[in-house]
């Protein structure tokens, strides 16, 4: 039985994304601004 279930072990492993991806998301969040003008909405990126 153990052998059969071992095929799916990798599928159930706990994983985490690499710090690079997290850093990208945090930088993306800091750079993204939502500008509203009258009824319009713009996404802008500030470096």
């Amino acid at each position, binding site marked *: 039985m153990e052998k059969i279930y071992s095929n799916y072990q*990798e*599928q*159930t*492993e*706990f*994983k*985490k*994304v*690499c710090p690079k*991806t*997290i850093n*990208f*998301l*945090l930088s*993306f*969040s*800091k750079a*993204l*601004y*939502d500008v509203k003008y009258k009824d319009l*909405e713009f*996404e802008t990126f500030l470096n």
Partner: protein
Amino acid sequence: MELQIEDSELVRDYISGDEKALEILINRHNQRITSFIYSKVLDRDITEDIFQDTFIKVIKTLKRGRYSEEGKFLPWVMRISHNLIIDHFRKNKRMPMFEGNDDFNIFSVIGDDKLNAEKQLIKDQIDTDLRELIEELPDDQKEVLLMRIYKDMSFKEISENTGVSINTALGRMRYALINLRKIIEKNNIVLTN
């Protein structure tokens, strides 16, 4: 006992401009979301991509103020990643991804006809060397060979143009090739691409 700030409070803080709140949210749910995505796609790189796309959607929705705290933060994020996983499989079905391995590479079977820069340089060099070797041939042989190879003329056309019989043209071509080989051998020239 460690005091843990609720997700809903962190979301409120983030919407108010506290970027640190997002970092806490990502780190708190990193393992759960990543494991969920990986269990479906079974590919490390695709998992990273889907995780990234999920949070890009999360960030955009929160910044636009379109998030409503009806349910909980994590189930909402999981739903986004679930939809992106479905999108990934749909896209893959339309355009299946092929990955080569050590035993088989698709580019060894298909490829464009163009030579790469290095091979083109070698070919040009060989062409130039060959033209120089042809110059060494007697004029009558050189004339037939140039007409046949470079002008793509038939032996009938060559005989009409040079005023000799077809057999003579054939003989000159034969001797031209024999003599070319002799020159190549004598000078130890290697003409290969």
